[in-house]
């Protein structure tokens, strides 16, 4: 069984009966390896569809938790259970619960830094005083407003007025939380949340491949939210200096927000500033200043200096890219595609209104970027299968569109692998208006293929 990844949380959803007999079948060695390789903040096992479990059944997952946590330092645990299941788990593991327990997936999401930073009002209760405090600190750190009930009666009293809270958190337990560098995307800026002591170990925990992929896909502003950092040593300083040099090649900007220099030599600040890193007192100084954001490159995915021309290898493999795209859209819309025109030039979009776009990069034996421009109607239709119903919610459509482009990227990867060409794909990006897409593609030549689905024009663009 493989975990489903959404918003940096990997979730396993076993169904039915979970006992020692079948648990090892749910998780093979390959499954554990695949889970360890995931770039996520949390690995959870949902018990929503489990009607029976015993300790042996849970143990298979608990062992997996230990391995994944040791390797990736992420938060691991169970979620989606009722009071009876919670009490049973606590009883099974009364000698020490090393994993976390989140009553629902939504509650688990509140504990991740990648959760879109919407401040929520939360009623919080745990019998265990230290748990109450730990949860409150984590939630507060993530920008929420936890109201703590000191005892059960108070909790019952307050929870009567459930509409006063976005979430009521009880029957939840924080095991060892992840120490991973949390990453989130705000607009076109990537924010890394870092904490405690930054030393030689930092280079191991920071995902260089994620960072490079983000640069490849067009992100130009990287902010290190460092208000929880206590101190930095010379190894970390060298690391950041190198990171800044490589960012300069892409014309990208690196900023630090909230870093204090009480325990870090002030000379480090000068060194980092010389490397091109900019310092701000707090994160909001950047995020709430639109002009500054634009100046730093975080409001639009500027194409940077790194423009390369499309090459013969890319053009040779073009049919595979188009096949992957057309087959996926046909699969999702149940309609046939007609190829209209193929040309090599800068991207050319007629009628920019009511269109949205998405892009995904690939790198490895060959590199480049696929850009898809959809009329809103086709996008909605294509995403309907993923959403499960028709929707006019643009954010939901964009969200599903990035899943759709991810499917296309996955398909390209498979088709190229058949030709012994090994590539990896980057995170997908979406554009809710064509203007921001055009800014990113300025002066980039590529292959443009006009396709028609049910008389609606759809554009495929392959560039480097």
């Amino acid at each position, binding site marked *: 069984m493989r975990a489903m990844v959404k918003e940096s949380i990997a979730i396993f959803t076993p169904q*039915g009966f979970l006992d020692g007999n079948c648990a090892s079948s749910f998780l093979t060695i390959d499954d554990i390896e695949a889970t360890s390789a995931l770039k996520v903040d949390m690995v959870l096992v949902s018990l929503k569809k489990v*009607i029976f479990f015993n300790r042996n059944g849970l143990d298979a997952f608990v062992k997996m938790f230990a391995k994944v946590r040791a390797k990736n330092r992420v938060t691991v645990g169970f979620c989606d259970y009722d009071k009876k299941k919670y009490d049973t788990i606590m009883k099974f593991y009364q000698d020490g619960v090393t994993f976390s327990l989140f009553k629902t997936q939504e509650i688990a999401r509140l504990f991740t830094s990648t959760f879109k930073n919407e401040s929520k009002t939360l009623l919080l209760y745990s019998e265990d005083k230290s748990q109450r405090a730990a949860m409150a600190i984590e939630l507060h750190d993530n920008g929420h407003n936890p109201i703590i009930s000191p005892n059960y009666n108070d909790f019952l009293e307050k929870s009567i007025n459930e509409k006063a809270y976005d979430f009521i958190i009880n029957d939840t337990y924080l095991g060892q939380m992840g120490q991973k560098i949390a990453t989130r995307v705000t607009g076109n800026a990537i924010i890394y949340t870092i904490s405690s002591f930054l030393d030689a170990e930092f280079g191991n925990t920071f995902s260089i491949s994620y960072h490079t992929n983000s640069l490849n896909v067009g992100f130009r502003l990287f902010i290190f939210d460092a208000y929880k950092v206590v101190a930095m040593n010379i190894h970390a300083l060298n690391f950041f200096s190198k990171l800044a040099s490589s960012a300069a090649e892409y014309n990208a900007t690196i900023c630090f927000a909230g870093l204090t220099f009480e325990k870090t030599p002030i000379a480090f600040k000068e060194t980092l500033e010389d490397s091109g890193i900019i310092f701000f007192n707090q994160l909001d100084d950047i995020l709430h200043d639109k002009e500054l954001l634009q100046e730093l490159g975080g409001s639009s995915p500027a194409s940077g200096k790194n423009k390369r021309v499309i090459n013969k290898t890319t053009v040779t493999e073009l049919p595979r890219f188009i096949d992957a795209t057309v087959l996926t859209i046909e699969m999702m819309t149940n309609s046939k595609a007609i190829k209209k025109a193929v040309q090599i030039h800068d991207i050319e979009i007629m009628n920019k209104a009511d269109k949205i776009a998405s892009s995904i990069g690939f790198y490895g034996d060959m590199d480049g970027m696929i850009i898809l421009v959809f009329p809103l109607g086709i996008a909605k239709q294509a995403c309907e299968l993923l959403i499960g119903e028709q929707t006019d919610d643009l954010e939901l459509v964009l969200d599903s569109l990035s899943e759709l482009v991810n*499917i296309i990227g996955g*398909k390209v990867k498979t088709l190229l692998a058949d030709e012994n060409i090994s590539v990896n794909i980057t995170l997908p990006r979406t554009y809710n208006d064509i203007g921001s897409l055009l800014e990113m593609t300025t002066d980039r030549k590529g292959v443009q293929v006009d396709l028609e689905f049910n008389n609606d024009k759809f554009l495929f663009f392959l560039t480097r």
Partner: protein
Amino acid sequence: MVTKETIASYIQKIPPAPKALRDTIMFLSIGELTKAAKVAEGDLALKAYLKNIVNKPIYGFRNQVSEISQIFGILGVSGSKQTVYNYMLTLLSPKKWILFKLNVTSFHSLQDNLSIKWQIILNHLGIQDDDIQNAITLLPASIIVSEALFNEHIEDVKLLRSIKALDYNTILMRLCGVDLFDLCEQVAQKWEMPQNVSTIIQASSGVKPSNDELVNKLGKWMHLLLFYELSQPQTVEAGLNDFIDFQVDYVADIYEEFSNLISMDNLK
């Protein structure tokens, strides 16, 4: 991807039950075991299937049973009918399983386990009805249908499932507006199985409860039994655990009773 046309052509391709089988079932329905055995002797594949089933260790016979009349005698009217229905389903099943990691043996084993446990459940509920007993035979049909419909687009389906945790039933429902259980009903109709077989199968999906109290009760037991079997190591390894969406709430009220019954059976 799977379209309404694909489904129509799939249903079209399902062969009608061969005459020998229909006659066998007809004679079994009126309790004429000898006549049924005589007709069944003429279908060599059915004969081999029945011999294979009844000589499994689960039946515990020291000597090989090879006469069809003997086999029908051992299985009884209802058991014989159920076995013939199971055989009809194997006619539909693929030679090589691709989507699910099953083979002839493991599929038969799933069929047998469901049939035997369903019998125990019906005895427990005090229900003696041939058609209701036979209803369980159609449950594995949904697995066959799913395998057949999706394996031509296996990469697409796998990719879709890896991005969004949709079960096969939901994918089919969203694409074509019919689900696997509707298709099973169509298979049942094509094979002229009694109407109440289809009704119970629909209720066992867990998402289409019936207004008929008995049908609904049987649907719940069948849904839970299906997931009990889909949680066994062999079926989990076959990739069947997330085959359809398990409706925990639908079966919550019978869980304790089910659990006691099955654990008692396991102790035997």
